């Protein structure tokens, strides 16, 4: 093993990338490779695990260990990997269908157990690989091959599901915001426990432009608020807008700096350890309130595989018992040679 610092390129595999030209996945791939170089990850220690979907092709494009599993089950495979070897640096890459439709339960339990992996959900609000059916995050009215008259199911909010499951780290990124995405992924990587990152990803073929209402260049400022712990929740052109708790309620509202006596001090300061705030931020949908990007919530907790290791160590320390003793514990008797 050499100590030469790896660059993003060192994480690029020799496999031809097979996403549609223009797919948002390319940018995310780049951001992940950049992040790995930044955090000085080792290729041999890094494992990408995925289910099935366009997003789930991700591991093939990484020059690291890669396990392309079956639809929805990547969280379970990842859990098994961590149980076998807690020292591995495991990333799960999933789509909105993979993570929230067939794999919803494994996702919930991964998050609940707080297994130390990075979980990236590429949310394009559509089933890409199977050619465009609506997904659990598709908005009501989505026309798709299986809903030609428009979908009627209420969508899930990935971040709210994660919070409901007891997530300890919830963040959001956008495929076309490379810098912020790398920053967010870096935080996710540093976090010990399940770090959940929802990434809004444009599917150019089946759901093109579904996020432009907040990702278009001219919309970013007014429709996105990039949240940072300890910093006021400001956004808008020249950060002229801010969020505050609507007095006497449990909800947020937009205020304009300088208007009606609002000063910088009135703006709510982001506290990433406040779950109620995180839920309110996650709930903002870009309609009245802007979409929150960045680390919405971060509060470390017990880590599953670490606790298991502790238990094993505690129980085995001082024990000299071997398996022969186990077999001989309890009542035994001897039959003598006759």
């Amino acid at each position, binding site marked *: 093993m050499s100590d030469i610092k790896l660059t993003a390129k060192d994480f690029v595999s020799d496999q031809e990338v097979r996403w549609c030209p223009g797919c948002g996945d390319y940018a995310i791939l780049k951001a992940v490779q950049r992040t790995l170089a930044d955090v000085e990850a080792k290729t041999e220690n890094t494992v990408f695990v995925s289910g*099935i979907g366009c997003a789930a092709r991700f591991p093939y494009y990484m020059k690291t260990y890669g396990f392309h599993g*079956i639809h929805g089950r990547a969280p379970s*495979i990842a859990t098994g990997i961590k*149980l076998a070897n807690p020292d591995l640096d495991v990333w799960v890459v999933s789509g909105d269908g993979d993570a929230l439709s067939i794999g919803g*339960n*494994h996702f919930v339990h991964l998050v609940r157990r707080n297994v130390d992996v990075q979980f990236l959900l590429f949310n394009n609000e559509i089933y890409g690989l199977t050619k465009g059916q609506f997904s659990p995050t598709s908005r009501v009215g989505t026309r798709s091959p299986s809903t030609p008259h428009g979908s009627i199911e209420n969508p899930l909010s990935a971040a709210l599901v994660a919070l409901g499951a007891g997530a300890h780290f919830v963040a959001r990124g956008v495929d076309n915001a490379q810098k912020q995405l790398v920053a967010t992924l870096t935080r996710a990587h540093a976090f010990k426990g399940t770090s959940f990152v929802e990434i809004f990803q444009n599917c150019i073929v089946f759901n093109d432009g579904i996020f432009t209402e907040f990702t278009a260049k001219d919309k970013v400022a007014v429709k996105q608020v990039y949240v940072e712990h300890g910093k006021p929740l400001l956004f808008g052109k020249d950060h002229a807008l801010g969020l505050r708790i609507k007095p006497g309620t449990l909800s947020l509202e937009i205020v304009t700096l300088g208007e009606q006596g609002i000063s910088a001090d009135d703006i709510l300061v982001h506290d990433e350890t406040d779950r109620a705030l995180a839920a309110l931020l996650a709930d903002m949908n870009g309609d009245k309130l802007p979409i929150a990007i960045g680390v919405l919530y971060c509060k470390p907790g017990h880590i599953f595989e670490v606790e298991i290791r502790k238990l094993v160590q505690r129980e085995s320390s001082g024990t000299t018992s071997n*398996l022969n003793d186990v077999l001989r514990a309890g009542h035994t*008797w001897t039959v003598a040679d006759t």
Partner: protein
Amino acid sequence: MPETPLNAQIKSPSRQTLESAVVRFSGDSGDGMQITGGQFMLATAVAQNNLSTFPDYPSEIRAPIGTTFGVSAFQINFGSRVIKTAGDNFDVLVAMNPAALKVELAGLKIGGIILLDVGSFQERNIHRANYEIDPRTDGSLDAYRVIELDISKLTLDAVASLGLSKEKGLSKKEALRCKNFWALGFVYWMFDRLRTPTVDWLKTKFAKRPQIAAANIAALNAGHALAETMEISDGLSSFSVAKAPNIEPGLYRTITGAEAMAWGLAVGAKLADLRLVFCSYPITPASPVLHALSHMVEHDIVTFQAEDEIAAVCAAIGASYAGSLGVTSSSGPGIALKGEALGLAVSTEQPLVVINTQRAGPSTGLPTKTEQSDLLQALYGRNGEAPIVVIAARSPGDCFNVAIEASKIATKYMTPVMVLSDGYIGNASEPWLIPDIDQLEKFPINLHKEGEYFDSTVRDEVTLARPWAIPGTPNLEHHIGGLEKSYETGEISSDPQNHQKMTDLRAAKIDGVVRDIPDQHVESGADSGKLVIVGWGSTYGPISRAVNNLQEAGVDVSHVHVRHIWPLPQNLGDLLAGFDHILVPEMNCGQFVKVLRDQYLLDAKGLNKMTGQPFKIVELEDAIRAHLEAAK
């Protein structure tokens, strides 16, 4: 009453010598029949009899007291000869309440002995047991020898003699609960068992509440004493069952199939020098394997109770991928759920052990009853061509060997191996000669090391196993998954010829496991002849006894017991072809017989039973005789 010393076996002159006997303890779920039976088993093992047991729990957790569906029983067959099953009909029935009598009577041999706690024969209990009138009054017990005793009262009397009270730490309820030990003491006298192991056990078990131990011991002794008295005064029969001459010397314990499976896996992982990562979701009757391993953290055994069976198998796959021995365990419905993921394990060639402790189906079926109806699911319950290895355990203790063998094959061939057990052998227990694991052969793991050249397709020339290159190893980074892989590069390939090649490879690899499988031998009887009975799995016991009985009666019949369901032993077809008739008893509608017919084009016939109950020996004897008759 003169107390007989605890550790004295009384050579009563009137003791009738038996080659073997079957005793069934039966009572309400709350009556402690499993403990009673367990203790009787222990005393019997110490007496160096061969033995086999069958615990028969109700499916309800705690059914209302006194109901027939709340009856819990424990049956033991023991003798000086080789014991192969827990016995068909029993010689002695201990019935702690009317419901137990109601449920069990049909299983008692005509002329058999019933020890009845008449203290429980109140009107209310009799009705709860669905008796119209008291069975002691309607002649229905005439064919048996009934010992009616108010065990409840006798127990209270015995315990009272200790001078304990609620204030002194023993309530009346607790005193009454000792009645199972009273009955046990009585039966101990009848069969001349030592009380010492039980007394020791009680003292250890209730170390923190010595008054409970004392009360139970008092009850045990009182039952024993009364039996002794009754033998003299009332002509109570008593028996002696000689030591079995053929018991291999060594250190013994009793073991259930679930324990044996758990320990076999632990030992298998140790022999492979791997961490065991056992991933499971609770389900009857598979859970005890999970429970047993959960107690073994100090041996670096990780047990993971997953959110469902799919998560469990996938976590096990992940663990194997990352270099541990991944194991998953369930019963029929749970195994059904694992089908898709097993295909992934086949496609990615993971060393994975899958335990199926079968139960009666279809669907939820009869969760606490036994069956062998998942064999075809084991072979074919996956999409695509996804061959795996299948091995079946034949007895509680055999689960240990099978688990080790499965671990070995899985890691040697980089393949999933399914182990078939069932509710019967999972719960049943038998004496077990404890092996010294330091004497067991270690098996080398094909783990690729740092720096070594890596190409995911460099296969072992003999086994065709892919190399096991685990994350964390520098320079061996690679991709793996459930899409078809190029034979050359290991990366995705949709090339038609490559798919053919990989399909052939996967089949050849499993077929090749035959190298590690001993040739099929004949269990008993001639190597060829008129009729062979072919069994697999837990039917070993009854078939083997039934065939022995028939052989002794001069019938030309052999017994072949197949452990390796897939691949089959190389010589099996030729062996079976040497018989005029082939009969395959199975607790299903004929699954293994399908495989044999397909593979060897031999006109094997099924002998099928689907009652949730193991075969009885006489049942088999009759069926075999009938078959021979019909074949004439």
